C-alpha cells in the first residue's frame, strides 16, 4: 500500500458518498427548498443571523470543525490496531454517518428557527435534557482539555526545536490583534508580517534546540534529577505498562500551556484567542496542503516517503497494560472521531453555521461538504503515521508528514520541524478555545445557583486546575478515548434529536436513526470499557503504590465515565419516549413555509 492509492480511495469515497447518497437524502427526505426563507433571512441581525454566501460559509464551517481531532485519533488508532481498520472506519464512517450527522444538525436548526441542539431538545424531548446536556458538555470539554495539555506538554518537552516557533506564535498573535483592532492595519500586510515571522521561527527551530535543551536540564536540576510525580502508565514499554515520571521540565511546559490557555480564556477574544488561531491556521494549512499534495506525488517523486511501514492489522484486542482490554469494537469507533463522525460538528453547526445559511440548497454543500473535507484531513494524518513509523505516535506522524513535505525539495529536517510545529500549533490553538468554552459553560451551568462561578477568573482557574489534575495521571490515551466517547455520544444524541424531529414531522428517519443506534450503543460500550481500563490499569496500581495525585486524577476519570453513561442513559430514555410519542402521532404539519421576500 502506498499513499497515492489511499488518496485516490479518499477522493472516490467523497465523490460517491456525496453524489449517490447525500444528495439523494437532501432531495427526497429533507426536500430542501431554495424558495423557503431561512432563519438567517427571517431574523437577520447583521452578525449572528446573517445570510452568507455558500462558499464563504463552507470555508468558515470547515475551519471551525477542523482541529486536532482527526489527526490525534488517526495516530492513536493506527498505532493500536494498524492502518487498515482505521482506513475502513474513516471511509465507512464518513460515508454513512459523518455527513448525515453534520448536515442533519444544520437542517434541524434551520427548520427550527435557528435554535440550538439543547433548545430543540428542550422542546421535543424534555426540559431536563437541556440540563443533562450542559453537564455532558462540561465533562466532554474537560476530557479533551486534559488530553491535549498532556500531549502537548510531553511533545514540547521532548522537542526543544519547536519552542521558539511556539513562543513567536503567541507573540505574533498578540501583535496581529493589536494591528487589526487598534492600529487598523490591513489584513494582508499584517498576515504577511506575523505569519512570515512565525514560519521563520519554526524553520530555524533546529538551530535553537541546544538553548532550550539547556533550559529543560536546568529545570530538572532543581530537584536533582528526581521526578515530581511518579505514576503507572499502561501505555509505556510497548503497551506492557511501566513506571513513568513527571519531571520538572514537563510540569513547566504543562503549566506554561495552562497560563497561555488561561490568558486566552479571560482576555477579550480579539486580543489573543482569535488572532493566535488565525496565525496558527496559516502554519497548519501550509503543512497540510504541502503534505496532502506530497502524499499524492510522493509515489512518483520520492517513493521511499510514500510507502506504508506499519502493519495493516495488529489484532482484534491488543493488550494495553497488564489488565487492560482494547477490543476493536467499540474502541476504534471512539478513538477516531472527527474524521468519521463527530458531535462537536453538530454542536457548532446548529448555532454557528445554521444561522448564516442563506438558502436551503446550501445546507448540503456546507454541512456535508465540510465533513468530507475533514475526512480528507483525517486520511492525511493516517497516511502520515502509516509511512512515518518511527518513535512515539506523534513523532511518527510528524516524520511521515515531514516526508511528504520534503517531496517539494525542503530538507527533511526542516520539513519535520514544520510538521511537528503544525501538530503542536493546531492542538495549542484549539486547547485555548476549549478552556474558553469550558469557562462559559461552567458559568452558564452553575452561575445561576452559585454566583461565584460568574467570575471569569474563578471559572477559568477551576477549569485549568481540573485539567492539570488529569494530566498528572499521565494516561493521555485513555483520556483521549474517553473524550472520543463523549464526542461520539454527542453525535449520537444529535442524531437522536434529528430522528425524533424527522418522526415528528412525518419524514423517513432511518438514514439518521440507524447511525444513531450504532453510535449510541458503541459509545456507551466504549465508556464502560474505558472505565474498566482506568480502574484496573491506572487507579488500582496507583492506589496500591500510595500515589495520591495520579490516584485522584484517575479516580476523577472513572467518576466522569460513570456520569457520562448516566447522562447518556437519561437522554436516551427521554428520547425513546419522545420518539414513540411522535411515531404514533406525528406533530401537526407546520403551516406553509415562509417564502423569501
Amino acid at each position, binding site marked *: 500500500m502506498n499513499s497515492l492509492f489511499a488518496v485516490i480511495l479518499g477522493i472516490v469515497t467523497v465523490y460517491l458518498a456525496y453524489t449517490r447518497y447525500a444528495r439523494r437524502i437532501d432531495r427526497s427526505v429533507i426536500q430542501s427548498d431554495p424558495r423557503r426563507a431561512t432563519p438567517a433571512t427571517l*431574523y437577520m441581525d*447583521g*452578525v449572528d443571523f446573517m445570510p452568507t*454566501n455558500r462558499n464563504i460559509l463552507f470555508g468558515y464551517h*470547515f475551519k471551525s470543525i477542523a482541529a486536532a481531532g482527526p489527526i490525534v485519533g488517526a495516530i492513536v488508532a493506527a498505532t493500536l490496531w494498524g492502518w487498515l481498520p482505521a482506513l475502513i472506519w474513516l471511509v465507512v464512517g464518513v460515508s454513512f454517518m459523518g455527513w448525515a450527522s453534520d448536515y442533519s444538525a444544520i437542517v434541524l436548526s434551520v427548520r427550527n428557527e435557528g435554535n440550538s441542539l439543547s433548545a430543540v431538545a428542550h422542546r421535543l424531548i424534555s426540559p431536563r435534557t437541556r440540563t443533562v446536556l450542559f453537564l455532558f*458538555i462540561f465533562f466532554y470539554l474537560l476530557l479533551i482539555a486534559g488530553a491535549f495539555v498532556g500531549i502537548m506538554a510531553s511533545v514540547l518537552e521532548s522537542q526543544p526545536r519547536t519552542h521558539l516557533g511556539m513562543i513567536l506564535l503567541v507573540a505574533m498573535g498578540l501583535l496581529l490583534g493589536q494591528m487589526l483592532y487598534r492600529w487598523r492595519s490591513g489584513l494582508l500586510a499584517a498576515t504577511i508580517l506575523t505569519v512570515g515571522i512565525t514560519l521563520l521561527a519554526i524553520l530555524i527551530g533546529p538551530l535553537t534546540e541546544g538553548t532550550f535543551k539547556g533550559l529543560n536540564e536546568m529545570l530538572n536540576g532543581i530537584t536533582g534529577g528526581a521526578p515530581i510525580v511518579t505514576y503507572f502508565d499502561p501505555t509505556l514499554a510497548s503497551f506492557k505498562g511501566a513506571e513513568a515520571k513527571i519531571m520538572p521540565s514537563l510540569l513547566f511546559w504543562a503549566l506554561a500551556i495552562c497560563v497561555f490557555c488561561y490568558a486566552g480564556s479571560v482576555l477579550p477574544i480579539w486580543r489573543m484567542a*482569535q488572532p493566535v488561531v488565525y496565525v496558527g491556521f496559516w502554519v497548519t494549512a501550509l503543512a497540510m496542503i504541502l503534505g496532502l499534495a506530497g502524499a499524492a506525488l510522493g509515489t512518483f517523486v520520492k517513493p521511499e516517503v510514500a510507502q506504508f511501514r506499519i502493519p495493516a492489522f495488529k489484532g482484534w484486542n491488543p493488550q494495553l497494560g497488564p489488565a487492560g482490554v482494547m477490543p476493536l469494537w467499540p474502541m476504534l469507533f471512539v478513538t477516531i472521531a472527527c474524521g468519521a463522525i463527530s458531535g462537536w460538528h453538530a454542536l457548532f453547526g446548529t448555532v454557528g453555521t445554521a444561522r448564516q445559511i442563506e438558502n436551503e440548497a446550501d445546507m448540503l454543500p456546507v454541512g456535508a461538504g465540510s465533513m468530507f473535507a475533514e475526512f480528507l484531513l483525517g486520511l492525511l494524518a493516517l497516511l502520515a503515521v502509516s509511512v512515518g513509523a518511527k518513535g512515539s505516535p506523534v513523532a511518527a506522524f510528524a516524520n511521515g508528514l515531514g516526508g511528504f513535505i520534503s517531496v517539494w525539495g525542503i530538507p527533511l529536517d526542516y520539513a519535520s520541524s514544520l510538521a511537528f510545529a503544525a501538530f503542536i500549533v493546531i492542538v495549542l490553538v484549539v486547547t485555548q478555545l476549549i478552556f474558553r468554552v469550558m469557562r462559559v459553560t461552567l*458559568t*452558564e451551568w452553575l452561575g445561576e445557583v452559585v454566583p461565584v462561578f460568574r467570575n471569569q477568573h474563578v471559572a477559568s482557574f477551576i477549569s485549568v486546575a481540573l485539567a492539570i489534575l488529569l494530566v498528572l495521571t499521565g494516561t493521555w490515551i485513555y483520556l483521549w478515548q474517553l473524550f472520543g466517547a463523549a464526542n461520539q455520544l454527542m453525535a449520537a444524541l444529535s442524531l437522536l434529536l434529528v430522528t425524533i424531529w424527522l418522526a415528528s414531522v412525518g419524514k423517513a428517519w432511518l438514514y439518521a436513526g440507524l447511525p444513531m443506534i450504532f453510535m449510541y450503543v458503541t459509545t456507551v460500550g466504549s465508556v464502560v470499557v474505558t472505565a474498566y481500563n482506568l480502574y484496573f490499569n491506572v487507579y488500582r496500581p496507583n492506589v496500591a503504590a500510595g500515589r495520591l495525585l495520579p490516584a485522584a486524577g484517575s479516580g476523577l476519570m472513572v467518576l466522569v465515565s460513570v456520569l457520562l453513561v448516566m447522562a447518556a442513559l437519561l437522554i436516551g430514555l427521554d428520547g425513546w419516549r419522545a420518539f414513540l410519542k411522535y411515531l404514533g402521532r406525528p406533530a401537526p404539519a407546520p403551516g406553509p413555509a415562509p417564502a423569501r421576500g
Partner: protein
Amino acid sequence: MLGLKPIQQFWYGLTGYEFTRHALDMRRELEGIFMVLTVGDMVGVPVLPPVYALRLLPYLVLEVAQWKREMARRKEFWEKKEYDFQGV
C-alpha cells in the same frame, strides 16, 4: 466549472471572515449601548428626556427592530452575549 471566485470566497471564509464577523459584533456592542441610552424606554429602561430621543429617532428607526430582537435574546440587556452561551 469551478472558477477562481468560489475559491477566493472559500479562502476568505477560512481566513478573514471571522475577523469581519467579530468587527461587526464589536460595532454592534457599541451601538447597543447607544441605543439603550437613547431609546432604552422601548425595552423598559428609563433614559434621556423624550425630546432628545425624538430628535435622534429618525436616525435609529431602521435599527430598532434588529436591536429589540437582539435584546430579547439576552438574559439581561447589559450582559454580553457570550454569557448567554448561544453555543449551547
